[in-house]
Every structure is written in structure tokens, then in C-alpha cells.
């Protein structure tokens, strides 16, 4: 359960995507620990009812976030945070994007339009990213260049196919992202 006593660097990568795209499954396929869940507090505009907290226009609610862990060496550990992609979770993004290496954006080829708000968030927080196209065997195999174009991505943004239930292809997507991060550092 514990980290290596010599651990000195804890880094994070965000696994992002719209609701139901497979973030938690992806984390479960990669993580060395059983994925854990945190209760994050966010403030939201309250609906028009009486609010007992004394702040009439905002209320605090909690959002569950799943995460996993990968020990990469005696001194280095990587955390994967499954970050929900809706605009109303911006507050969580502000904190989670701070110091994050980058983001793996999971997309469902059948519901590509649902990924636009996610891409907006990733870009507004200045995160480098790669796209993981979640592909289950037996579903339509869309050409990756068509997905690249449909998502209106810059030419150098990697798009890779993965099955989030499978460790090997999920790991390959993560490696593609980190390779992309390296190339961006020049």
C-alpha cells in the first residue's frame, strides 16, 4: 500500500473525458492499486430555494473523483486522476491542472460531439494532451484521421486507439501522451 520510502517526486496526469467515456475503467486497467475515490468540494450556483448556509447564491456540493497510482522508480510515482469534463467542474480543474504533466482525453467515436467541452477545458488550462479513442472490439472502427479532423485538432496532436479495459492498449495511449509531452519540450 505504501510508497517507496525514497519517493521524492509525485507527478500527475489527468485522464479526462465526458461522462461514461471510460475514465475509471482506464484508471483501473493501469493502476497498481485498487482505484480509490476522493470527495471533492465544489461551489455551485444554487437553485432558487432557501439555503441554510447563509450564502444565498452558492452552495457547496461534493463530486467523486477516481484515481490510481503507478510506481515508476524508487523515487518517482505517477498518479492518474479521472477528471470529469463538464464546465461546472472548472474549480476542480484549476487545482488538478496545476503541476499536471498533461492530459489523456478519452473519446467515444460514437459520441464525438460530447468531447468538445472537454477539449475546451483542457485547452483553457493550457494542458498538453493526446486523444485516446476508446474502441471496443466489434464496434465500428473509425479511421483515426477522420476523428482527428472531426475534433478539429492541431496537426501534432496524437490520436491513438485504445480499449480502456485492456492494460496494454491503455498503457500505449499513456506512453503516446508522454512521448508527445517530450516532443513539446523540444
Amino acid at each position, binding site marked *: 500500500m505504501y510508497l517507496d520510502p525514497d519517493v521524492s517526486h*509525485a*507527478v500527475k496526469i489527468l485522464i479526462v473525458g465526458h461522462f461514461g467515456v471510460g475514465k475509471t475503467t482506464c484508471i483501473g486497467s493501469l493502476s497498481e492499486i485498487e482505484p480509490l475515490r476522493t470527495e471533492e*468540494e465544489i461551489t455551485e450556483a444554487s437553485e432558487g430555494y432557501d439555503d*441554510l448556509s447563509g450564502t444565498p447564491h452558492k452552495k457547496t456540493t461534493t463530486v467523486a473523483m477516481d484515481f490510481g497510482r503507478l510506481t515508476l522508480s524508487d523515487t518517482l510515482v505517477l498518479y492518474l486522476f479521472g477528471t470529469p469534463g463538464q464546465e461546472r467542474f472548472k474549480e476542480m480543474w484549476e487545482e488538478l491542472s496545476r503541476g499536471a504533466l498533461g492530459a489523456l482525453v478519452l473519446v467515444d467515436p460514437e459520441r464525438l460531439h460530447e468531447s468538445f467541452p472537454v477539449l475546451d477545458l483542457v485547452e483553457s488550462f493550457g494542458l498538453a494532451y493526446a486523444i485516446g479513442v476508446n474502441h471496443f472490439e466489434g464496434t465500428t472502427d473509425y479511421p483515426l484521421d477522420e476523428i482527428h479532423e472531426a475534433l478539429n485538432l492541431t496537426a501534432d496532436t496524437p490520436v491513438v486507439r485504445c480499449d480502456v479495459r485492456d492494460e496494454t492498449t491503455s498503457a500505449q495511449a499513456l506512453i503516446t501522451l508522454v512521448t508527445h509531452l517530450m516532443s513539446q*519540450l523540444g
Partner: protein
Amino acid sequence: MPDEPEHELELTSPLVPLFVITNGRALPPDHEYEHTTLVMAAPESAAAARTLSPEAGQVMELVADGFLSVAEVAGHTHLPLGIVRILLAQLEEDGLILVRRPIPRAERVDRELVSAVLDGLKNRFGA
């Protein structure tokens, strides 16, 4: 010792029990205990830990034998992250935990660090 005045507590509000757990303390600035900040019980903290609140004691027990991230402390204890942060601030102030904070974000991400992440992933997954 004078009795504490009885306050009428609004028990339907979720803030009340949380407020009690933290003994009325406020949240420290969130970056003070980021998700990836690592914590572990300080040596010889076990005796003092026995006098803590049940929740703070639960945190101390969890990190008694090694480092875990703040996120993992929240995950294992099922306490909201905001509460965990307040408890950790208290424990650090009392010298009961060791804290390793992530390196503050530099102007650009450290190339050596990203390279180590890439090597680590390739080794781990045999790619």
C-alpha cells in the same frame, strides 16, 4: 471547567458534522496539501496520536508505516478531501507527520522529469 454553552445545531446541514470533526478549523489554502503531496507519521508520534480525535487518529494510523499521497489518505479514510486537509494541517503543526510537497510548477515542465516518466512507463509495460 465551565460547561460549553449548548448551541442549537442545524443537523440537516452537512457542514455541521464536518465542522465538529475539524474542531472548527478553517480550510488551509488548497495548494498547501495538494492531491499529490505525500505524508507519513513522524517517528515517535504514536503516543501523541492516541489522544487525537477519532478522525485524526484514523489518518495517523493509516500513514503510520509509510508515505501516502493526500488523495490516498482521503480515499482510504472516506473523509472529504477538504476535511483531510484541515486534519493534516493540524497534524503537521503538532509535528506528528512528515510532509513531502510536490515541486512547484516551473515555467516549463522539467524535461528530465518527463523523460523519467516515459522510461518508467516503458519499463513497466514493456513497450
